[in-house]
């Protein structure tokens, strides 16, 4: 039977990708962020995952407004690198864990989560800005899982929590002996329009991390509008952290968390070790 061996939340941002691609990771401004990612990557490597379920959001690079699934899971053998306007980043396609993906798709439907299966998906920075820092050479196959945070109507945070719970049960019911890590990317605070463009809500970000540690389910009672008010319009991506946390057993605890408010973003990375009921 498959088990979840780790949960990881982390920010995604084009700035991370640009620094990586330009070899700028050691600049004084960005070194703290890349050191935090390096710590998280070592921690995750020790959990020896056989598959990574990566919950993220697309930014109008794969999906378009003709139809945008509230939730989707990639069921492809591999995933292409999106061209977000600067040309595709120079990575080989990302290998998919097809059997686990198909199991998750079927199980989630049975659990009342009506999600879309994508047989072809291009990965954008929602996936690709953090993942090379976490598994640089694509050693571990992935299952990409998207949440719509772009085209209204959006799923509620409570529904994203339910998605995560169903994901946890899907992984637990997978017949093969597999070690799975669940990753949620996005956030924390950022605002990319209007007169508050670039505002970082650091106090709220720290409160969010504390809630995720001690009372994660309370975050499922927030609305998307609450998150937008507290952390900026584009911080609603934190629902991907909620879904990740909901996939883990309730008793799980945060093992580390890093937070770096810099530039346009409150960057964060946190690791969770799944607990077992006493």
């Amino acid at each position: 039977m498959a088990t979840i061996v780790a949960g990881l939340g982390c920010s995604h941002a084009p700035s991370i990708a640009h620094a990586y691609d330009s070899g700028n990771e050691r600049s004084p401004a960005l070194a703290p962020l890349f050191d935090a990612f390096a710590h998280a990557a070592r921690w995750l490597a020790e959990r020896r995952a056989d598959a990574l379920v990566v919950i993220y959001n697309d930014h109008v690079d794969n999906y378009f407004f003709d139809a945008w699934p509230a939730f989707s899971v990639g069921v492809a053998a591999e995933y292409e690198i999106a061209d977000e306007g600067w040309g595709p980043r120079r990575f080989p396609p990302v290998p998919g864990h097809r059997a686990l993906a198909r199991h998750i798709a079927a199980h989630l439907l049975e659990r009342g989560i009506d999600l879309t299966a994508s047989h072809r998906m291009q990965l954008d920075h929602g996936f690709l800005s953090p993942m090379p820092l976490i598994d640089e050479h694509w050693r571990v196959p992935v299952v990409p899982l998207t949440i719509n945070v772009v085209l209204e109507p959006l799923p509620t945070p409570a529904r994203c929590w339910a998605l995560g719970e169903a994901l946890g049960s899907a992984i637990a019911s997978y017949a093969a002996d597999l070690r799975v890590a669940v990753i949620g990317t996005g956030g924390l605070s950022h605002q990319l329009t209007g007169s508050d463009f670039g505002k970082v809500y650091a106090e709220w970000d720290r409160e969010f991390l504390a809630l995720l540690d001690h009372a994660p389910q309370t975050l499922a009672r927030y609305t998307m509008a609450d998150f937008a008010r507290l952390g900026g319009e584009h911080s609603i991506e934190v629902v991907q952290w909620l879904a990740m946390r909901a996939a883990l057993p309730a008793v799980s605890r945060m093992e580390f968390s890093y937070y770096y408010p810099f530039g346009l973003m409150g960057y964060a990375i946190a690791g969770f070790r799944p607990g077992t009921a006493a």
Partner: protein
Amino acid sequence: MKADDIDVYEISRLLYSLRDPANREAFRAGAEAYCRRFAPGPRGMRLLLARDWQGLVDAGVSVYLLTKLGAATGVSLLQMGAKMRGMSDEQFQRFLEEQNRRNRPLALLPDEARPPRT
């Protein structure tokens, strides 16, 4: 078509098309001609040609699509942000540096990674 007409779906379709390098090249070669392949409406056309980022946002265009126009025309997200705030690039940079300083006490970092205090 009235002068204040704007079609956000068509603008979105136009910006989405800029994921293709040939389309980016065509846009750079002639922005107005490229925009005429779509039907953004008269006001939409004006906002696009003026690169009125906040005007496009106010009309309902996603910033994630505006970054594709930025990429095609050499405008960074930071430059877009400065325009939306009504600041020069330098003023916006100073705002961000000041914000970094103010928020630094709230950072949580591996000890070896903590930036030097200024």
